[in-house]
């Protein structure tokens, strides 16, 4: 089949070449030159510009009618200003688009080449240049002023009573964190991330369990490295050599010294002393060697023995080094204090960690804080005209006030299944196209009720493991396994 296609293509090419040659021949026989474009051709192309213009404008208008108002009205306060600004800009842009393109196409159509006329020699006109520099400048100045005013409002300080929500992004999902009843977010440190602590929240338990986990990993790795068969055998061989060397070593050693005496002018008495000491430590060394050899033999029989390639072995050594460094970092997370009574160990314990969907009360300002675990993601909420990157190592923020509840929007759109959504809008890997979280806007009461249902991050000792923790652990471990 592919051969057939190839054949058709090749034959097609050959045909095209032959046809072209025939065409060349015919025009040269008629004495025509390619650069002499006929008046007919010029008129045709001029006319085509007009046809093009009509089709172009018609399709623009069709698109505008069908898709011009695609997004529903803004669901946030600043979004209303943004939409106004957008309409204002679009009005100007449409006007300029139609005016300038029409002049372009119209002149092209009208002034096609005729041999009996000469173009008008019009090389410059400073007044005209001034006009069409000044007018755009004024228009742009207005656009700038209007735009910056909107921008300043959007990016200003959040209100004191704004709700704060942290949006935490990672490949490939979002997690929302609400400060608990204490009103404070717990600190977070990425060194404490474990399946049960997906956001790395700093708490005493968090540090302990992170330490525990890493000790387990380190122990396991140390075992693997210690029980690597090839290295064990090598070590055993080397130890055996030294053992046998030492057995005959005494006699040999003396002979060597005698030979070297002439060269080194060394003190004979020193050697005699050395020989005496040598005897004692030699016996100790031998015992050491023998005991290690028997240990190795014992290890070789155990079922913890593994075989690794040299590359894999080095990789494990590197990993061990990194894990030990990580352990140091965990231990460095000392205790901090907020000013006030709350200690860093406590602030995070009652944070609410939420996956899948997050809720906000209508009419209240929310200040989002964005953090990322791995690469740059971006929280895009088009219905709220909101977008902000979440950058690893660089927390970002964005404030907005929702003004249309989910229920209301469902009525407006006549779509009982509608839901607000947050999408990832910065390429972040394979599943970038499906990294979303549902947003629910509801009354203050409903929101309060919902928030109360969310379990705090750490329950007190003795209480049952919360649903949230269970879910967090399940999902987090899935993700970590997936990324390994």
């Amino acid at each position, binding site marked *: 089949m592919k051969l057939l296609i190839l054949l058709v293509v090749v034959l097609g090419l050959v045909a095209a*070449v032959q046809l072209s040659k025939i065409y060349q021949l015919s*025009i040269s026989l008629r004495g025509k*030159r*390619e*650069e002499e*474009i006929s008046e007919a*051709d010029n008129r045709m*192309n001029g006319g085509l510009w007009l046809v093009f213009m009509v089709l*172009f404008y018609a399709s*623009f208008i069709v698109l505008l009618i069908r*898709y011009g108002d*695609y*997004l529903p009205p803004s669901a946030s306060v600043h979004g209303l200003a*943004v939409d106004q*600004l*957008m309409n204002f800009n679009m009005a100007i842009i449409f006007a*300029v*688009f139609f005016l300038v393109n029409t002049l*372009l196409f119209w002149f092209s159509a009208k*002034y*096609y*080449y005729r041999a009996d006329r000469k*173009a008008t*020699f*019009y*090389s*410059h006109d400073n007044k005209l240049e001034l006009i069409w*520099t000044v007018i*755009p400048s004024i228009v*742009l100045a207005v656009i700038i002023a209007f*735009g*910056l005013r909107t*921008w*300043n409002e959007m990016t200003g300080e959040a209100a004191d009573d704004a709700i704060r929500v942290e949006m935490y992004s990672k490949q490939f999902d979002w997690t929302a964190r609400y400060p608990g009843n204490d009103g404070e977010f717990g600190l977070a440190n990425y*060194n404490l991330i474990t399946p049960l602590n997906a956001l790395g929240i700093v708490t005493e338990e968090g540090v302990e369990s992170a330490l525990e986990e890493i000790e387990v990993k380190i122990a396991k790795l140390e075992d693997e490295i210690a029980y690597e068969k090839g290295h064990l055998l090598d070590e055993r061989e080397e130890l055996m050599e030294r053992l046998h060397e030492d057995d005959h070593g005494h006699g040999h050693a003396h002979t060597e010294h005698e030979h070297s005496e002439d060269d080194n002018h060394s003190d004979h008495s020193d050697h005699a002393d050395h020989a005496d000491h040598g005897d004692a430590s030699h016996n100790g060394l031998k015992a050491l060697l023998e005991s290690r050899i028997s240990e190795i033999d014992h290890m070789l029989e155990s079922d913890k023995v593994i075989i690794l390639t040299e590359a894999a072995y080095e990789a494990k050594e590197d990993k061990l080094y990194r894990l030990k460094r*990580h352990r140091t*970092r965990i231990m460095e997370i000392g205790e901090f204090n907020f000013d006030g009574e709350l200690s860093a160990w406590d602030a995070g314990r009652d944070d609410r960690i939420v996956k899948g969907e997050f809720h906000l009360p209508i009419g209240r300002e929310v200040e989002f804080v964005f953090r990322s675990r*791995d*690469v*740059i993601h971006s929280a*895009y909420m*088009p219905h709220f*005209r909101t*977008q902000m990157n979440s*950058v*690893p*190592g*660089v927390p970002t923020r964005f404030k907005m006030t929702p003004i249309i509840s989910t229920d209301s929007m469902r009525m407006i759109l006549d779509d009982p*299944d*509608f839901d607000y*959504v947050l999408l*990832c*809008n*910065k*390429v972040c*890997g*394979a599943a*970038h*196209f499906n990294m979303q979280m549902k947003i629910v806007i509801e009354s203050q009461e409903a929101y309060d009720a919902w928030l109360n249902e969310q379990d705090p991050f750490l329950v007190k000792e003795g209480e049952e493991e919360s649903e949230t923790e269970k879910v967090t652990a399940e999902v987090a471990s899935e993700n970590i396994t997936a990324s*390994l």
Partner: protein
Amino acid sequence: MGDQAHHHEESFVSKYVFSQDHKMISKQFLVTAIVMGVVAVMLSVFFRLQLGWPGESFAILETFLGKWAPDGVLDRNAYLALVTIHGTIMVFFVLTGGLSGTFSNLLIPLQIGARDMASGFLNMLSYWFFLFSSVIMIFSLFVEGGAASGGWTVYPPLSALPQAMPGSGMGMTLWLISMVLFVVSSLLGGLNYVVTIINLRTKGMSMTRLPLTIWAFMVTAILGVLSFPVLVSAVVLLLMDRTMGTAFYLSDIFIGGEALDVTGGSPILYQHLFWFLGHPEVYIVLLPALGISSEVIATNARKPIFGYKAMVGSLLGIGFLSFIVWGHHMFVTGMNPFIGSVFVFTTLLIAIPSAVKAFNYITTLWKGNIRFSPAMLFSIGLVSTFVTGGLTGIILADSALDVNVHDTYFVVAHFHIVMGMSAIFGMLAGVYHWFPKMFGRMMNNKLGFVHFWITIVAGYGVFFPMHFVGIAGAPRRYYEYSNFEFLNGVQDLQPIISTFAIVGAIGQLFFLFNFFYSIRYGQKAVQNPWKSNTLEWTTPVKHLHGNWDGPLPIVHRWAYDYSNPVHEEDFVLQTTPPLDGEVMH
């Protein structure tokens, strides 16, 4: 070096392969860029198949992509790789190497009246680095983990960490190496261009008599020389983060089950460094196209380009301003909003010289006597797309509005219309217009007409609907959109866009056939087929090393005496001395 042309023996290798002659080098750049362009267009057709008909099986995908399209459906990592390499090839290899490399090399010595570039040797090296860079970039498509996949902008940490995606392994390393070589090529070329223009103009060729192409190429070269090194710094720091454990761009990262022990870096640093080049880069792409169009429009309208001084001034204005607008790519990175305001201001400023240029082009057409060569058609198309694409730039420049359209299809529409249509049209206009000068033969006009009309219709057909898809809230670089109910309504635009893309791609076959066929069998050209004023048309049709047989031409007038009422012919070569009592422009 005397006034006489060089007559020395040239072997096949020194004439066609390791040539130091600027005309041959320009052809080498052009052909390489065309090949790269074909590859990039194919990549775009592949991913448009996925976007237009998500999840459907296409045998052609499996044929070309093998394991990257199992059962004929594009793999989601491969999708990102295709998008990345498509963008990289188009912006750098086709529109910078292919546009500046070809036309700066061809036209600078010819239009200023010089024997060759200031350094033929550096010029030759600039091509070979370009070729080497191209080969590595193509090769990166074939490595195990796939090519770089973080978009052509390759932001870290995604591009710094092999654990983050397969393309961030060897593919990314090769991308970085290729780009360093590419920048070397650009710098060698750019330095040559500037030095040549300043020093080697022939007698009488004052700066104010230079054709606008030369002004454009000079400003472009200066932009390149000042901004490409910053890209190299971004790349070097990224290479260091990838291989030497540094933390320029990395901090607080947990990935692949491990907490990385690097802190203190910021991914935003990369964005500043990248876009400090990135923005001038798009003007490096656009200005030569504008310069070419000035020439083509004046010649084919048989009228002087309107407002020569204003055109030069706006080139300089755009060039200068292009260095202080880069932050508009970063409005939603969490940058201090005040800095955002500054960039809004400077970016909207740049609209002013751009508008002046557009108005000047249109006034040049007014009361002209327009010959619609294919080059002229493309140049008029350039003006239309420059205006259309430039206007949407106003929305993007407004930070409050950008919040809602950043990284959506609205941006994709904008930059494709200005680069994928406007700049490419400039390049194609240049090819059609200077083909006789490059190859001593004429291209076929009828095929040129067909090529143009298919291309402009298909081009607008692909990119115009994208504005609507973007404002509706559809992010870019998405493998598919079926996971979002609220976007269902705009999804019927996707197959339409893809269909236009396929038609447009097929339409380029008319050009490819015409181009290669005419090199060999095209009608032999006369010396000045377009009846143009500029110096390149005073050289013999058959290429001469040293360009003029005999002494260098002497210039007496500016380049735009078309339909000058004092003269009988509707064009006057720049070498024509003033008539008795003629008042010179």
